[in-house]
């Protein structure tokens, strides 16, 4: 496996993409990995995007920029449009079809729908659990680099309530990808 892993999560403000990036980063710290995470925000007020860029490595990390993300989680059409072309052929785009209606079929990378919002409403009656579902799916995709247990542990540490529902949503997301 190559040493440097880049993960980008981007969507609207309030979807928890910064929290997602931070959870992955905290899990990586627990495993003794080096981590950087940049959060871009401030533009969400004007209908832009919120983005977290996470880099994981065994070695000290130079550039904290995710110029070619291994995984890109797109939670809004604007985010998808803006970053889809940065994903290299061997990378993967995970997108929520509730927000990303039009998919660019010309891309070389794999693209996988993750209906996190619909699943959250269907199984847990609340869209806010989409965040946990997305994290579960990312955790599956990052297996071999991040331990699932560490990701879940880092996630639950900062969740004040609905711990059981969040755990179940995480597991549901984990099962959505293979």
């Amino acid at each position, binding site marked *: 496996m190559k040493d440097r892993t880049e993960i980008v999560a981007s969507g609207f403000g309030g979807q928890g993409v910064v929290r997602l990036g*931070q959870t992955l980063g905290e899990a*990586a710290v627990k495993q003794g990995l080096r*981590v950087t995470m*940049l959060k871009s925000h401030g*533009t969400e007020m004007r209908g832009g995007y919120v983005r977290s860029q996470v880099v994981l490595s065994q070695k000290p990390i*130079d550039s*904290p920029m995710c*110029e070619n993300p291994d995984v890109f989680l797109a939670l809004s059409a604007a985010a998808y449009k803006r970053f889809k072309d940065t994903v290299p052929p061997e990378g993967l785009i995970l997108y929520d079809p509730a927000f990303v209606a039009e998919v660019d079929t010309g891309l070389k990378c794999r693209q996988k729908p993750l209906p996190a919002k619909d699943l959250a409403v269907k199984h847990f009656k609340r869209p806010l659990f989409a965040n946990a579902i997305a994290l579960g799916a990312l955790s599956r995709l990052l297996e071999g680099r991040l331990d699932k247990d560490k990701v879940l542990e880092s996630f639950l540490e900062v969740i004040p309530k609905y711990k059981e529902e969040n755990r179940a949503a995480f597991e549901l997301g984990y099962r959505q990808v293979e």
Partner: protein
Amino acid sequence: MKRFLETGNFAITEGAILAGCRFFCGYPITPATELAEAMSLRLPQVGGVYLQAEDECAAMHLCIGASLGGMKSMTATSGPGFILYADPYGWALGCETPMVVLNSGRVGPVSGITGAPGQGEFYLTRYPTQGGNFETVVLAPNSAQESMKVVVDAFYLSERLRMPITVLADQLITDGMEDISVPETEEEMKEMGFRVWPRSYHRGPDFYPATDALDIPPVQMGHNTGALCSDWTPTEEGYDIEEVEAHHKHAYRLIYKVRNNRHLFSDMHEKRHMGDDPDLVVVSFGTPSRVVNTAVDRARAEGLKVGALRLINLWPFPDELFRRRTTYLVVELNWDGQLVREVQRAAAEGSKVHFLGVCGDLPTIPDLMETFTKLLKNQPLSRKGWELEAW
């Protein structure tokens, strides 16, 4: 040692506390606000004081006051606040008051863009106040972890040189998150190369000796030593005087205590792939240097003889690092070109000095690779219609 996923602001706060800082006075401004917030949380826990001033000018003056009373003090801001430091910065330089000033650069001029990184204050940090006749010391970390050490170093230098020290960061360093190791014991601090110097006070009566000597304790109020300090040219006892000879002595001290003691910080730079006299040396500081390092690694993997020189000590400018005649590429977060002017001045005769500027975002690796390739092939640079050499 404790490890956290935290921001540069957290690292800077912990570094300041480890260095003995017990007074912070600030004024909210993006992207230094979170540093003030972290200080407001942490300082009382260690018996320190956080105050919010009426403006940045007052903030630094309150730090001066606290330092005059014997507390290690710090303030932090971004460009639009840094210009309001002009007044107190001059006072602190003239009266030789130790303190640490942090400027987290964003995009200017004026308020510009708040949430994006910029490097528009390279020269402003050299001349943060009017009047001349002084040297300044400016340190620029490129990561959250390093910013902790640099802040500790800044406090150390401020005590030994008896002057304010500026830490020039940028929005990505202060707001960005990283895994950060915080030492918990003095031994761990030593292992990490943290240098700490205790505060002492001057007993007079010659409070402003006209020498370049290190370690002259700062002038302090409250010990009834007859200490005097003012904004005017001082006599050695601190009286105000309008005599050119006294001014000359004062200026000599302000300039040469720094110039003649550069050994305290002259090793503060990073070289990568510089051992084999590279054909192209990429010069940068702060966050862009991290992209440069990645790009230079990649260039080497592709057989290009490129090296990277990253400055931590920006001022006094380390001329000696540019003695070799070669091609230099200066990468910085502004469109007007600031660092590049200094490199051009310092570079050995016959060197070529080129500029690659971006602002609000970091340079990308493909852009850097393309620039390296063109320069090594002696092709002209241009991008987005901007003549990059035109500065």
